[in-house]
């Protein structure tokens, strides 16, 4: 008689149940939550091994590691949810080094009272996103905090990947004359999330662009690896923040052309509603590449051949500039600076 095994475990009532403090206390309830929701959704041998860490073989070489916390609100939005973001976003930060993402970890901070159903939906979409990307979630952690000490669920993912031999993308590598390529339309993610925001609620078909970009990156490197100076995914702060970061890290300026920046009409319209500049709005499935002039066409053509880069566009060039200004020729024909947004991105009236 095996009483441990015989002991009946009431099934998680995923449809109606909620996370309570016992699910974070290190006892059987926690084990059941982790197995019944996370392991089921992420399903792989590493998690089944049940260790506090997971092991894998690596070849020698250059590895990258990254992490991001995901705190998006609302948790579900057109085109994705916090879970898909947590997978895509961390894969993308690995891919931006030109690296092949290998493994992810996921740490969950769950607010007491969070519905199992929502947690399962999030976990399932993380599992699906990770399988689709071929990057398994091999280790994780679960904590439960009291009501009103979190906001539903927060997810921190970390990831590792291997950089192809000889590749060395760095944030200070942009040189005057380099081409600036954006992989597609800007602002989709930020607008999709804001459209579901409590006080702002507006109706639109815009979906988040949330996507894993490592496939696109692999193609780009195959086509023009030697010419790619650096890549960035323009998330928080939008391409304005990304270009300014690169400018100050590489001690260069940019001159871009507003007309060339892909922008969906609905996103432009939503930005008009909210008084926002799409250049400041977040993306979750786009990249900015700085490419040596001689490789720009090849890289651009390769990107356009990939489904996630079909609208890729060469939007401008790196220029020498001690001030590290990002300048833009407006579609109107004038010039302006593209600056970081000061403070939080607030819907403004004026």
């Amino acid at each position: 008689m095996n009483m441990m095994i015989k002991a009946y475990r009431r099934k998680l009532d995923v449809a109606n149940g909620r996370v309570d403090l016992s699910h974070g206390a290190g006892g059987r309830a926690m084990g059941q939550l982790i197995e019944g929701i996370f392991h089921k959704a992420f399903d792989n041998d590493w998690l089944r091994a049940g260790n506090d860490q997971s092991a894998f073989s690596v070849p020698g070489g250059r590895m990258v590691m990254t992490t991001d916390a995901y705190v998006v609100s609302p948790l579900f939005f057109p085109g994705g949810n916090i879970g898909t973001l947590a997978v895509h976003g961390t894969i993308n930060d690995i891919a931006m080094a030109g690296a092949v993402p290998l493994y992810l970890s996921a740490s969950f901070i769950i607010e007491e009272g969070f519905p199992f159903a929502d947690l399962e939906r999030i976990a399932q979409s993380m599992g699906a996103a990770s399988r689709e990307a071929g990057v398994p979630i091999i280790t994780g952690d679960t904590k439960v905090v009291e009501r009103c000490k979190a906001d539903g669920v927060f997810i921190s993912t970390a990831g590792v990947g291997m950089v192809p031999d000889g590749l060395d993308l760095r944030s200070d590598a942009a040189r005057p004359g380099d081409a600036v390529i954006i992989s597609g339309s800007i602002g989709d993610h930020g607008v999709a999330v804001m459209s579901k925001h409590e006080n702002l609620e507006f109706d639109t078909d815009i979906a988040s662009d949330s996507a894993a970009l490592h496939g696109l990156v692999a193609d780009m490197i195959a086509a023009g690896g030697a010419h790619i100076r650096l890549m960035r995914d323009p998330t928080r702060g939008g391409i304005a923040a990304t270009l300014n970061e690169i400018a100050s890290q590489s001690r260069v300026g940019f001159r871009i052309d507003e007309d060339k920046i892909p922008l969906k009409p609905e996103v432009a319209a939503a930005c008009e509603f909210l008084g926002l500049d799409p250049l400041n709005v977040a993306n979750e499935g786009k990249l900015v590449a700085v490419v040596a002039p001689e490789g720009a066409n090849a890289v651009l053509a390769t990107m356009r051949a990939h489904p996630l880069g079909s609208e890729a566009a060469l939007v401008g060039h790196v220029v020498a500039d001690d001030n590290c200004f990002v300048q833009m020729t407006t579609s109107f024909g004038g010039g302006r600076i593209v600056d970081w947004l000061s403070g939080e991105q607030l819907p403004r009236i004026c």
Partner: protein
Amino acid sequence: MKYIDEYRDGRLAKDIARQIAALADPGRSYHFMEFCGGHTHAISRYGLEDLLPANVRMIHGPGCPVCVLPIGRIDAAIALAMRPEITLCTYGDLMRVPGSNGSSLLKAKAAGADIRMVYSTLDALRIAEAELEREVVFFAIGFETTTPPTALALKAAIAKGLGNFSIFCNHVLTPAAIQNILESPDVRKLGTIKIDGFVGPAHVSTVIGTEPYEFFAGEFQKPVVVAGFEPLDVIQAILMLVRQVNDGRHEVENQYIRAVTALGNEKAQAEVANFFELRESFEWRGLGEVPYGALRLRPQYVAYDAEKRFSMVTPAAKDNPACACGAILRGVRRPTDCKLFGTVCTPDTPMGSCMVSSEGACAAHWTYGRFRERARQVDVGRAVA
């Protein structure tokens, strides 16, 4: 985007700019003040300056209600918001405006004040209805455009018998401010500064109409062209102003005929008149006390007037004495004339009213235009000798 994209056509703009250059007398310079921050924003955002001939120069006026709000009013709002029973609702624009000692609503929120950003007075009302145990105060700010929505919220609160809703009124009036500028000694004094005409407000004029500007045009002999906020609207208005100046006319013209009439929105005016009355005087940051430059709730609505209801006091608070905003708002100086510009004073750490909102003259120049500093070795358009 219908009624937007048509007015953003850069090719037409270049042609009109060429026409302006052709008409502008090379022997003289033209200084036009756009009163509205909306115009300032459009000019900077689209780089209109780059299209204009060197002798046509825009002066950025005080038309941003966020910029002209005195520090003391922000301090008062913060003090109110810190009271435990208060929920302060505010448009997002105000969150980062610095009060005294580096404070702001954003920081007060971080320090525990219950401050909610709203998109509309409708949201503030909803909050008051949903949270009857809270004292919900709407931090009302804005020109004639934003006042009618406040009036309607007050009307609805009264109709619903919402006893927990009140208004901290900071609504200000456009004509009073224009008059104040035209009457200021340095503007009046011949030779120091010259304003050759005004680009008149777009959306304010949808409410008040074009008639209120007739007085200035006549009294001060300045042309006024009411214009839309799209860049082609602005450039066409500039062309119309150049023509008036060349013709020696000083009329009120309406470029924004698609939305503005002579008499404006009389329904909105009536709603405002029902609930608000003139303040004898109100401080405009950068301009000082402006007589009859603002509104307050009529005495019969004292219960909805947060200033009265909560015995609010507006502490005296001074701007940095090195800040040149007052002169900038009157067109006497330019942002780069200020020693603090771009060093101590940036949009991240604004020291004066012109840096506070992206529609302020200094902020617009910093955010969109500061790359021009290098190019502009000789400041041909400089008005102050």
